[in-house]
């Protein structure tokens, strides 16, 4: 099922990786506050439940899931920021939580909602500090900055205080700061968050280029499917701390969308009631209707539509990946979890 090149040793390994958090449980209102003050109620949240996956050298893997699915927690364990409750994380042969300099020198973390650039100073100052920390000589650092800045179309922005930059310029500068030491493993948590389409495209192109040049492994989370479709051949879908799917991007559609999208261009307008018998109506716009049709009834439905309706044009396609993933998250994961033999959710029942 996995699209990873099996010949090379994986750079990232999650083996039964589990994280439980203890959180305070407080009822609203004054009474709740008082009760909480006297007697704390705690609840254990299983943020990540015994997940298993690997990332091969040079591979870009999309890590998908709704908010609170456990993506960021998993990334924090893999970058050594937090300790796993149980299970094993391994990156480049190291245990991340030990925070060995030899490992930290080779990985990086970019978070779309947090920034490492010094706010009041030009981004170049942060680059210089990072170069010193990673032991990159000044002239080499200058060369790298110049190269990256060229790819990201940044120039004089780098000498302006960071607070004067647009969100897109800032994220581009963040990327330069994060990649200046030429890391081998990249953890990117929503790197295009809030960026406009142009900036998103630039960031994607840049990441693809970096990956190709340096053979770096990338684990990327994003809510923008365009990021995923542009960069990732393989995706891992996670929800409520459990992996629902791990495989090719195309396979997601195959597995989770047992239907095709049929678009009909009709001679005249029809009402929803008249069309409902052909499939689930996704969109009805004048004389154009977009239907979801079960795969096993596709041929008969298309034949029926062609004979019964005044069809000017008809196209059959896979539904957009966004919709498939969206449906996947919305539909509850119960039946899908059952479909997946690779999961061992029982393993998660370990005390914190």
């Amino acid at each position, binding site marked *: 099922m996995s699209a990873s090149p099996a010949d090379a040793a994986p750079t990232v390994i999650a083996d039964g990786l589990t994280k439980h958090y203890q959180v305070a449980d407080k009822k609203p209102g004054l009474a709740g506050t008082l009760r909480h003050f006297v007697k704390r109620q705690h609840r254990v949240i299983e943020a990540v439940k015994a997940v298993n996956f690997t990332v091969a050298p040079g591979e870009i893997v999309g890590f998908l899931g709704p908010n609170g699915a456990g993506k960021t927690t998993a990334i924090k364990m893999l970058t050594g*920021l937090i300790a796993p409750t149980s299970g094993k994380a391994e990156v480049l042969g190291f245990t991340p939580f030990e925070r060995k300099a030899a490992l930290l020198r080779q990985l990086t973390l970019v978070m779309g909602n947090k920034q490492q650039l010094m706010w009041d100073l030009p981004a170049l*100052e942060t680059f210089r*500090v990072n170069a010193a920390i990673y032991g990159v000589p000044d002239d080499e650092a200058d060369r790298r900055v110049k190269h990256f800045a060229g790819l990201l179309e940044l120039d004089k922005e780098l000498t302006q205080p960071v607070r004067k930059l647009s969100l897109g310029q800032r994220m581009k500068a963040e990327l330069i700061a994060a990649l200046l030491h030429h890391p081998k493993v990249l953890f990117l948590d929503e790197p295009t968050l809030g960026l406009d389409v142009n900036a998103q495209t630039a960031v994607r192109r840049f990441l693809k280029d970096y990956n190709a040049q340096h053979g770096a492994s990338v684990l990327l989370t994003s809510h923008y499917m365009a990021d995923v479709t542009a960069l990732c051949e393989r995706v891992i879908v996670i929800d409520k701390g459990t992996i629902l799917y791990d495989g090719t991007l195309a396979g997601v559609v195959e597995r989770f969308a047992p239907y095709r999208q049929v678009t009909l261009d009709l001679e005249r307008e029809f009402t929803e009631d008249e069309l409902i018998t052909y499939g689930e109506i996704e969109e009805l716009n004048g004389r154009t209707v977009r239907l979801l049709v079960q795969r096993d009834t596709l041929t008969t439905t298309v034949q029926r539509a062609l004979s019964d309706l005044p069809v000017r044009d008809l196209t059959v396609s896979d539904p957009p990946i966004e919709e498939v993933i969206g449906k996947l998250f919305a539909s509850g994961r119960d039946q899908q979890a059952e479909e997946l033999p690779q999961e061992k959710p029982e393993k998660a029942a370990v005390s914190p």
Partner: protein
Amino acid sequence: MTRYARTLRLFWGASISAEMEYRANFVFAAVGSVLTLGGALATLAVLYQHGYEMGGWSWPEAMLVVALYTLLDGFQRAVLAPNRQAISEHVQQGTLDFVLIKPMDAQFWLSTRRLSIWGVPDVLLGLALIVYAGSKLDTPLGVGGYAAGLIPLLLGAATLYALGYALATLTIWVTKAGNITIAMQALLEAGRYPVPAYAPLFRVAFTFVLPVAFMTTVPAATMTGKTGLVWVIGSLGVAVGLLVACRWFWRFALRSYTSASS
């Protein structure tokens, strides 16, 4: 080590250039320092004019303590306080993650990242007053006399640092700990006058519970020859003990760090 030196130079260079934007504030800080020091000296002068001797300390000796206090306070304002403040900001904003992921000791980073020029006037005033007070002693200090104070002074600074860093570490759990700076300021303030001038109970407390005595009184007493090597060794013990404890506490805190959510 050169990597750390190069980083430190850039940290401080960046901090200074960020603060240089606010030149007027620096003037205010300097004026404030002069007034504070003037006030402290005036209080002392009033006491000494009427023949009162603080715990057997002469006027220049007491002045030396005020000078050392001013110097340490400057150090606290320049280096310790801004970095302690930054720790809680990092925890609140989740940017501690960026520090922890760097191949550099996180405690070094968090202790040195910022340098504030606000403390510089105090440092300069403190140094000047040390030289002046030393020259007014019954036996004016020579180079050796000043140098003798250096080691206990450094140990006192280390003690001040370790206590403050340990307190700042608490923000890993409680997040909001903005009062740390006030608490540390108040603690150091107790060292503005020679500890022997306090009531016996306070003397014990300021030596063995909150080691204020080791920050200003011991360096001054060493310089003037009021105390011997024993107190310097004691100072060393306190400083090393607190540094080790603070390091352990920091590592312990990191083990339970959960990182601000996304």
